[in-house]
């Protein structure tokens, strides 16, 4: 029986992994605190101080702590500092679960960003806003929004290596296409 470790590429060390081609720079974002929050989102906002609007697909997230809308009653709270709140059920009507280690975050930037997006999803980034930032990207479910001039992608930790290989392939395609 073949050892499949030989077949599947070794997942990179996210601490220093980068993809760089003309027009595109891709890296992993470390150290973000992330939580899933469901239920009465207004009550959550009041209790937590996450009071900005929750961004949808390709929305622009701003600040040190922000919310990304995943579903009608579900959001992802993202912060560069610890939350300082418990998880579980809150009598105010919301539920909180830790997910910091569960979602790997990548950041993509550069003049070829539009070309990169066009290869990842059929959703039109210039189209009408779409309320949830979860969408099918590179053939898998992902959370996709903008942060400053780059694109942030959160993906299930188990699929991060797949997305990385996909991004390497696509970045190479974009680079070859623009060279010709």
């Amino acid at each position, binding site marked *: 029986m073949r050892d499949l470790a030989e077949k599947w590429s070794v997942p990179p060390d996210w601490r220093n992994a980068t993809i760089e081609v003309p027009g595109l720079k891709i890296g992993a974002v470390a150290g973000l605190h992330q939580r899933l929050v469901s239920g009465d989102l207004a009550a959550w906002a009041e209790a937590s101080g996450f009071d900005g609007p929750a961004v949808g697909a390709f929305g622009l997230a701003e600040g040190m702590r922000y919310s990304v809308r995943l*579903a*009608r009653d579900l959001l992802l709270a993202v912060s560069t500092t610890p939350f300082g709140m418990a998880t579980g059920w809150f009598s105010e009507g919301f539920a909180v679960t830790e997910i910091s280690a569960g979602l790997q975050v990548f950041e993509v930037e550069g003049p070829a960003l539009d070309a990169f997006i066009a290869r990842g999803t059929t959703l039109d980034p210039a189209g009408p806003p779409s*309320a949830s930032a979860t969408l099918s990207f590179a053939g898998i479910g992902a959370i996709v929004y903008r942060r400053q001039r780059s694109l942030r992608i959160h993906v299930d930790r188990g699929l991060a290596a797949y997305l990385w290989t996909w991004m390497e392939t696509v970045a190479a395609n974009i680079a070859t296409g623009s060279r010709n």
Partner: protein
Amino acid sequence: MQLFPCPFCGPRDETEFHYGGDAGNARPDGAEVPIESWTNYLYLRSNPKGTAREIWVHMSCGEFFVMERDTVTHKVLSSTALGGEHAA
């Protein structure tokens, strides 16, 4: 490639959705329900050629909703969140 309107997210690619059966197919509860009712619930389908009312789930955001569409022309007629909530 069809575009289905998720009541929450708006139009998304058909690959983000999963079909969930006939709308209005109420589940009869209990170990004693007549087997005909249970069989109807579990297996029998309207499967209309033309306008259909169906349950769909938008797998990206997890929304279950009712969609009316034409099974021949693939024209989407409406989509409504379960519980009567509509997208803002």
